[in-house]
């Protein structure tokens, strides 16, 4: 790894300073990779790819018909984050999830935040993810989003900003764990130069977070991971997490809710009670008795069972009401309102098109902004202004005028970069970071998270559904 002729293009680089020298925290790592030499590095990369093929760490891309999974693109050069910096980020993540859960409880119950005029009723009124079936419910611990994937980006000012909160069925944590596993297997010696904080405890933490939701405390809870099935893009992760937690991996058809309003799974020995379901199915498909009647993925009666308190559901139905790019803009206010604290992690400044003056600003600056629809995920339906064509901008102007509530815009951030092995050798590629945060009777955040890389030169789109890759993420304690 030669770090000399490395141009960072003005973006903040995670490992390399502007003068081309490694940051102090990355010195040992850069030295090590430089000493490896190209031949050795290539052979290690080949070994990584072989290991990925062999272990079948895959990600499904919907458009690739016929071949249902694709090897997970992994870059061997880790991203390093300073432990002191991380401690602050971790606090901010927990603070944010706490406030969001307060908000969801409030929205489905008293709606104080609306009465106090902090949060506009119009936003709620048009929310696609508001579930009337959840009105009046307060789940255990007042927690709806038990698993949150918060997307962070580091701007050229060197600070982390929250890009979005994923509160529905955030995915990617299995890749975070597998990336570490791959690195340890193939570059065991580089760990010797740093004190890298472990990430392996995630599945145990997830297990305990879920177990706390059991309606039958005191007994060993039966936990199930509910998957839409093998053709879902995240199936690998569903089966991975079930295996790591010693939970059952179930599909909708494996579960029934008889008249006693409890959930059972169909086993070789008849029906067996299920206490907690970690569901990886969207709300709309969860229960055909309440939501989409044509859903074959869900379990008829699941909502009855949940509302009667006979089963724990994570994340709770309706949690998505706070996973909305317009609601997002209000999170700093929520933190002040519910917790009486100053937000630790800043939002990216956002322009809500529902406000007339803001909409005018957005329409006048489409070539500079990133426009996002309120309720899409996976990077779909976005406009990246500086990389857009006139025709695309006109299409988005029409979309925004038609439905202003559904759009918000943010300045194009310069996402940070890190050295990445590309066809042309070592080059900077943009990245983001998705830590995973858990809440039930406890609060927990991963040490680091999943670093996603936009593998195409100059690209800012890191979503794995759109061809992004990933890196192992190291939170490193003290001086190396």
């Amino acid at each position: 790894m030669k770090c000399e002729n490395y141009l960072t293009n003005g973006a903040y680089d995670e490992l390399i300073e502007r003068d081309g020298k490694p940051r102090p925290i990355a010195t040992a790592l850069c030295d090590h990779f430089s000493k490896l030499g190209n031949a050795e590095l290539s052979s290690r990369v080949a070994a990584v790819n072989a290991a990925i093929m062999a272990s079948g760490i895959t990600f499904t891309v919907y458009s690739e018909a016929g071949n249902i999974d694709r090897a997970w693109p992994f870059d061997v050069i880790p991203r390093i984050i300073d432990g002191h910096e991380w401690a602050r980020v971790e606090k901010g993540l927990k603070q944010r999830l706490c406030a969001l859960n307060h908000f969801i409880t409030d929205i489905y119950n008293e709606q104080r935040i609306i009465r106090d005029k902090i949060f506009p009723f119009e936003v709620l009124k048009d929310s696609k993810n508001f579930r009337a079936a959840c009105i009046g419910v307060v789940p255990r611990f007042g927690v709806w989003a038990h698993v949150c994937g918060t997307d962070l980006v580091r701007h050229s000012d060197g600070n982390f900003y929250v890009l979005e909160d994923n509160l529905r069925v955030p995915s990617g944590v299995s890749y975070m764990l597998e990336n570490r596993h791959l690195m340890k297997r193939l570059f065991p010696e580089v760990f010797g130069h740093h004190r890298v904080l472990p990430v392996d405890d995630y599945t145990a933490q997830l297990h305990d977070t879920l177990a706390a939701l059991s309606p039958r405390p005191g007994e060993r809870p039966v936990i199930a991971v509910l998957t839409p099935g093998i053709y879902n893009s995240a199936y690998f992760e569903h089966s991975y997490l079930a295996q790591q937690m010693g939970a059952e991996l179930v599909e909708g058809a494996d579960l029934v809710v008889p008249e006693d309003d409890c959930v059972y799974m169909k086993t070789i020995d008849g029906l067996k009670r299920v206490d907690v379901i970690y569901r990886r199915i969207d709300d709309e498909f969860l229960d055909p008795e309440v939501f989409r009647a044509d859903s074959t993925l869900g379990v008829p009666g699941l909502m009855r069972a949940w509302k009667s308190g006979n089963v724990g559901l994570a994340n709770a139905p309706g949690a998505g009401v706070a996973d909305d790019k317009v609601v997002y803009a209000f999170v700093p206010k929520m933190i002040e309102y519910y917790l009486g604290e100053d937000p630790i992690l800043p939002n990216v400044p956002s322009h809500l098109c529902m406000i007339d003056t803001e909409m005018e600003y957005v329409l006048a600056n489409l070539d500079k902004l990133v426009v996002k629809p309120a309720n899409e995920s996976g990077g779909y339906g976005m406009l990246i202004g500086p990389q857009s064509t006139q025709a695309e901008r006109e299409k988005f102007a029409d979309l925004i005028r038609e439905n202003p509530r559904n759009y918000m815009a943010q300045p194009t951030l310069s996402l940070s970069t890190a050295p990445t092995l590309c066809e042309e050798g070592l080059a900077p590629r943009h990245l983001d970071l998705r830590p995973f945060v858990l809440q039930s009777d406890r609060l927990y955040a991963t040490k680091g998270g999943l670093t996603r890389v936009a593998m195409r030169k100059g690209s800012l789109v890191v979503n794995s559904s759109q061809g992004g890759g990933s890196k192992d993420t190291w939170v490193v304690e003290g001086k190396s």
Partner: protein
Amino acid sequence: MLSRVAESLYWMTRNMERAEDTARLINAVTLMSLDMPNGAKFGWDTLVRVAGLDDLFFDQYPEADEASVMRFLIQDESNPSSIMTCIANARENTRTFREVLPWESWEWVNELYLYAKSALPGELDRRNRFEALQGIIRRRQSIVGLLSGTMSGGAAFMFLRIGRNIERADMTSRILDVSHAVILPADTPAGEQYGDLFWMNILKALSAYQMYRRHVSVHARSAQVVDFLLKDALFPRTVAHCLNEVAAILSALPDPGSVLEAVSNTLDMVASSDGEKLVKGGLHEFADRIQLGLIGIDDALRKRYFRLSYPSRQVFGMEE
């Protein structure tokens, strides 16, 4: 254990075992064809008939020559029992329940699949074919070893073993039937010489030759081999041994009554068979009867464990 997972484990091993056993069958035949006297013919069509696939085969191939039969049995993906299809199915099955198997098993199954993809290309000459199929057998055996060595003996492991033993019994019963494939020229001197060679190869296909010699005889006489493969209580691929295993595993599962009955019916039939009589006539019919018995066991398993109905509860959206 979820019923769906139990069924899928059962089919995963049946597919795996079928792939391995088909590889064994083909290797036995390859060895056999090398030992045959001048003028002897090998009836390749017998092989597809033995596998119960003759209708499907003749739908697609005009003639049962060696190349067509080999392609059909080894890599033809339109054949649900070809080695390639079985391995691909087993891999797909494994993906659906990685959480109940030791983590490495997925890697090993995947590796077997990748190996099969690269080692079983279009045309294989006899030598390469033998080596490639040995590679399949060896990898499959490693997986069996991995599972025995690292898996708790709970329900998941039990259904794996049930599937393995039923498929094994099935293939052993079919392999007896291959004896009809060798057509010796009319002027072959009478005697057991070629018969011995033939049965020796059958035993080798099942890796049973050495054990047979140790425990039964140095001569591979037909009646003795038939008796051995049907009834020997100790060798792990005989019909009786496989079914006794199934019975033993079942006894540890909840309420196995109906399935155990189907197993013991088939076992009784095997116990009362007589090798001497069978080699004189009726071997083919007897193999058919064993296969019907196995189908009965499979059916009983499905009703008892895989597709239960819950008549006592009125449940919306239930099957059956």
